[in-house]
């Protein structure tokens, strides 16, 4: 059996399948790296998203492999041998499962090598999400084998691949407005562009496992069967798996999209002052954030009651949750870039300075972004950029105007206006702008 398995690993479609999955997967990952560079769970979820392509490929690979006996016209010869059909397919089943497993995992390793320098937080959920992805591919390749044996034609493999992709794309529409149903049956659903604090609840993974395992068992029953009666029996595991999965999955839309990993969102800080803190998911970026963040704090030190610490802005929406606001703390958006390092490294200190003029998010009278940019650049002593990723273009343009106005004022008057703006931001009384009437 091991001997035959070795032969099948070398000579069946297994090697080609693993290679195709790996190459396709890596190319997909490379198209938009910023989606997965944040961390391990983001990588695992992005791999799951790309099952949109890999899953149909596995289906087609299984169907192609299953047509081998038909293509090679060995039915006559094999019919004279004692070994039952169910035994005969076993090495092929294992070889193809090993193939999709290695294709998917090496794709994950390639993505992992890209982020390994900065990705530190490794939640258990990342393994669960990957395991469900592997199971989805095994179910697909086995199901492909079963269908390919029933319909051993050349057209079966491409047709099954296209049908599989169509199915994945149609599931969300077909189940609307019951998004949770799509989550049961589609391994790619709600895996799109995970946020920094994304989580995949265990119950979702368990429900998906039940469904996919049922699909795999159905394929096995189909492969072992010889008559139409046993083939009808294959419907049993599918029905049972679907029922179980539907029971286990919470009947709640956006179940994964709304899930937040509180541990990923906790802050980890520098030990020395001035303190700089980032969320655990970004802990690998802390050293990259610290230096420019402290430069920003140094610039702000000119202000009375200047902020002394920088925290990552861990605000989330649905449900809204803001980090506590303190006058001594500047909140900073931290994002991972394409290269798995801190995005916009050169802008960090400017963002810290501008962050000192930001109002709390629940404040109804927040500071005009143009005022923030102008005040920050007056402190830094450089002209604001005409365009920036962090602000709207018209805000950037007005900021240049405001900055010029500030510069024309005597230094002490300008400083007074900047200090007043900072006070207004902290106190949430920002109907007062840099040049509104009530400021001196």
């Amino acid at each position, binding site marked *: 059996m091991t001997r035959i398995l070795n*032969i099948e690993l070398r000579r069946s479609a297994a090697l080609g399948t693993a290679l195709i999955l790996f190459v396709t997967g890596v190319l997909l990952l490379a198209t938009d790296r910023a989606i997965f560079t944040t961390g391990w769970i983001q990588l695992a979820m992005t791999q799951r998203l790309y099952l949109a392509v890999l899953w149909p490929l596995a289906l087609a690979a299984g169907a192609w492999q299953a047509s081998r006996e038909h293509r090679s016209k*060995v039915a006559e010869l094999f*019919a004279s041998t*004692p070994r039952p059909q169910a035994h005969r397919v076993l090495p092929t089943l294992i070889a193809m499962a090993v193939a999709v497993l290695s294709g998917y995992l090496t794709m994950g390793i390639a993505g992992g090598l890209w982020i390994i320098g900065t990705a530190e937080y490794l939640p258990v959920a990342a393994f669960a999400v990957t395991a469900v992805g592997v199971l989805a591919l095994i179910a697909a390749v086995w199901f492909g084998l079963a269908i390919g044996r029933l319909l051993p034609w050349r057209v079966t493999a491409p047709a099954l691949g296209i049908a599989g992709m169509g199915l994945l794309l149609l599931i969300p529409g077909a189940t609307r407005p019951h998004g949770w149903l799509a989550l049961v049956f589609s391994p790619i659903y709600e895996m799109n562009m995970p946020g920094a604090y994304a989580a995949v609840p265990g119950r979702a993974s368990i429900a998906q496992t039940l469904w996919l395992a049922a699909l795999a068992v159905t394929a096995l029953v189909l492969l072992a069967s010889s008559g139409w009666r046993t083939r009808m029996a294959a419907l049993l595991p599918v029905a049972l798996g679907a029922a179980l999965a539907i029971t286990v999955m919470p009947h709640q839309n956006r179940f994964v999209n709304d899930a937040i990993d509180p541990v990923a969102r906790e802050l980890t800080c520098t030990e020395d002052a001035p303190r700089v803190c980032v969320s655990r998911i970004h802990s690998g970026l802390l050293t990259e954030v610290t230096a420019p963040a402290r430069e920003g704090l140094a610039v702000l030190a000119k202000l009375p009651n200047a902020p002394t610490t920088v925290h990552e802005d861990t605000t989330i929406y649905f449900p809204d949750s803001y980090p506590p606001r303190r006058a001594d703390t500047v909140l900073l958006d931290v994002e991972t870039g394409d290269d798995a390092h801190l995005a916009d490294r050169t802008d960090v200190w400017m963002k810290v300075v501008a962050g000192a003029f930001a109002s709390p998010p629940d404040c109804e009278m927040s500071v005009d972004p143009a005022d923030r940019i102008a005040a920050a650049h007056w402190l830094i002593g450089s002209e604001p950029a005409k365009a920036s990723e962090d602000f709207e273009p018209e805000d950037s343009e007005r900021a240049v105007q405001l900055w010029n106005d500030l510069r024309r004022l005597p230094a002490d008057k300008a400083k007074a206006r900047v200090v007043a703006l900072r006070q207004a931001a902290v106190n949430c009384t920002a109907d007062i702008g840099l040049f509104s009437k009530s400021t001196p």
Partner: protein
Amino acid sequence: MRTVSAAETAPTTYPWAIHAEGLRVRAGRHLAIDGLDLAMGIGVHGLLGPNGAGKTTLMRSLATVLKPADGRLTLLGESVDGRADLRKVRRRLGYLPQQFGFYPRFTVREFVEYMAWLKEMPKTAVPGAAQRAIERVGLAAKAEARMKTLSGGMLRRAGIAQAIVNDPAVLLLDEPTVGLDPEQRLDFRGLLRDMGVDSCVLVSTHLVEDVVAACTDVVMVNEGRLVYQGTPDGLVAQGGEGDPGDSPAERGYSALLRHYRAGAGK
């Protein structure tokens, strides 16, 4: 050297390796074997007959690929009908179909080992048995070549190697000499004589010369019925000076067929 199982050393309890009584087998809708009585034991049996005589259908039913429609068929003392568990008999069969299907990406050795596995040989016996079978057909130098790279004659020999890998008690070869050059045919006759020492070998062929040279027994069928069973010398004796053919055996073949057709026309 190889391990000999208890089953192999046990005395045979059946008089004939292949025994058919009133056998009827369908090829599609057509009754290609129609009331055949045949008994064969140890030795090399040459199966002769014109195209459409039912040779291949007979081979396929003996290989347990086709189920008999009627009559009795016993292989190695086991009854072969619709309900029987054929696994025991099939373990002791070797079969080279007329259309030999194979996996083109496998090497010769891999394919022979794969077939040994399908024949449920003991795991430890497989590598040695495969090597021996490949050597016996003279393909040792090509053992690591992919099946798809073999020439027609080599493929035929690979087909024979897979058929004999399990040292079958019943070896069925459907036109094994197609594609072999004269030298290879001579080697093949030697192999047949070897195999015929302790197995029942049935070789279907159009080459009457092969039968005379290598077979201990001649079986001739036409229109699904037995025409003649006897020794090659007996076949030769049937022919007279006036019968068509370039050799005594061919003249005997023509004479038998003509007598049979004349008899059937009555």
